[in-house]
């Protein structure tokens, strides 16, 4: 069985806020849910499947009750920022199996305003917590080793931020709208070697939501048709200490499986949403997904190759997490939303990819240098 073509993304909504001290987290979930339902042209009572993750206050029954939903399918998969890309696939599976017909996926939170509680410790905690792994140094360790093994440079990584900033200048909601140069990035303060401040993403309040539905329902609605044709997920950790290799991500497994299911190759992709918690995150995933060979990511991203209208692979045309939005420190949702905008032809005209009929949304969640989950979605516009 395949999910190819079994589910369509009929509704998308990205909250315009980047700072929400005046709202509750549950309220933000409700606002993005309402936005996505209205975008699809549906009503709340049409929702019969709900997908939420660790950012939803109280988890499953409090959120279903708060939103006033009546569902027959629920999924609370939590793989950090990739949760929503994973749940897109899970929603397609549930729809294909007849377990629900209109799935709602929400993400929302306020990391800029209030503290995000830590997750419960795993079996590794006593052997790792004391060493102070954070997002910055965990990704820093990947970048350090990638540079050692492949000669990747800070200037090459900087091109990823430069490309994102070129796109963000056209997004009125972007947190950072200023176009930056390679020099700006490499001269910004070092946070955790070799990552500078401008190698990092923004921290924002806000959220987003999706409506995923069956082909029949999608075709009865008014939005351009965007369907999921390939999907996969994978996880990677330090492998119990054996053959440690931090230069690749679990995308090496999720990517090829998703492409195989879709029956397309990286060369066919017109637009790429790639999770960009840090510049190194993008570079490693481009390699792992097969857009270039392992170790050649630095050369691939240099000279504006990721800038829409300039390079071969337009990426994160909303400005991405690096410049626009990274709600709840979980970037997967906005990756899907911008891919759908591109496929609908609803991206900003300055960054809209012409004849964009095939896109990828890919992300990782957790810490790339410690333990993480990757998910890849291949999306297609249907004429």
């Amino acid at each position, binding site marked *: 069985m395949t999910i190819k073509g079994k589910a369509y993304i009929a509704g998308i909504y990205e909250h315009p806020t980047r700072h929400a001290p005046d709202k509750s987290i549950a309220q933000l979930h409700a606002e993005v849910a309402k936005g996505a339902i209205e975008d699809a042209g549906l009503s709340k009572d049409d929702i019969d499947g709900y997908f939420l993750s660790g950012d939803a206050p109280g988890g499953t029954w409090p959120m279903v009750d708060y939103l006033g939903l009546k569902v027959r399918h629920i999924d609370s998969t939590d793989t950090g920022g990739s949760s929503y890309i994973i749940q897109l696939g899970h929603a397609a599976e549930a729809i294909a199996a007849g377990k629900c017909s209109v799935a709602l996926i929400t993400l929302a939170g306020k990391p800029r305003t209030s503290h995000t509680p830590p997750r419960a410790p795993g079996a*590794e905690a006593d052997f790792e917590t004391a060493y102070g792994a954070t997002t910055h*140094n965990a990704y820093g360790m*990947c970048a350090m*080793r990638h540079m050692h093994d492949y000669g990747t440079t800070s200037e090459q990584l900087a091109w990823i931020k430069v490309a994102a900033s070129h796109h963000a200048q056209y997004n009125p909601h972007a947190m950072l709208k200023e176009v930056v140069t390679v020099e700006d990035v490499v001269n910004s303060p070092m*946070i955790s070697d070799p990552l500078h401040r401008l190698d990092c993403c923004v921290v924002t309040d806000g959220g987003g939501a999706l409506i995923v539905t069956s082909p029949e329902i999608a075709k009865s609605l008014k939005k351009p048709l965007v369907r999921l044709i390939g999907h996969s997920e994978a996880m990677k950790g*330090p492998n*119990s200490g*054996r053959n440690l290799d*931090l230069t690749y991500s679990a995308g090496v497994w999720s990517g090829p499986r998703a492409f195989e299911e879709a029956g397309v190759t990286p060369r066919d992709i017109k637009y790429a949403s790639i999770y960009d918690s840090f510049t190194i995150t993008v570079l490693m995933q481009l390699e792992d997904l097969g857009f270039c060979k392992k170790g050649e990511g630095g050369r691939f991203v240099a000279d504006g190759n990721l800038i829409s209208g300039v390079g071969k692979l337009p990426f994160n045309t909303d400005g991405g997490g690096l410049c626009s939005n990274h709600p709840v420190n979980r970037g997967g949702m906005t990756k899907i939303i911008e891919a759908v905008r591109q496929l609908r032809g609803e991206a900003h005209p300055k960054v809209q990819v012409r004849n964009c009929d095939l896109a990828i949304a890919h992300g990782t969640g957790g810490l790339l240098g410690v333990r993480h989950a990757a998910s890849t979605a291949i999306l297609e516009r249907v004429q």
Partner: protein
Amino acid sequence: MSEKVYPAPVINPETAPFWDAAKAGKLMIKRCTACGEAHYFPRSICPFCFSDQTVWEESSGEATIYTFSLMRKSPTGPYAIAYVTLREGPSLQTNIVDCDLGQLKIGQEVKLVWKQTSGAPLPFFTPA
């Protein structure tokens, strides 16, 4: 800047022998007698072949830096997180301590040092 206080490990039946050995200054890894592979952190069931025939083995405490990242600022000052690869095979997450953190290199040889907590000590590494 406050003095660095490391959290005491919460000892459970599976890991108690590791922490008992740590109190005696010994870094223990687990080796599977079925597949021969060593792993870290220690588990009762081998994460490679799923055999329950795992045994404790003392590490030499000699290692090389696989990768590291120097966090420039924190409430307790700069610190260097790292993965080091033990001579016996497994790699583990740690900090490199008690040295000029600006001089660290991938491939550098390091050796085990212990840092005290209110419970069992924790393994760290310093240039050899």
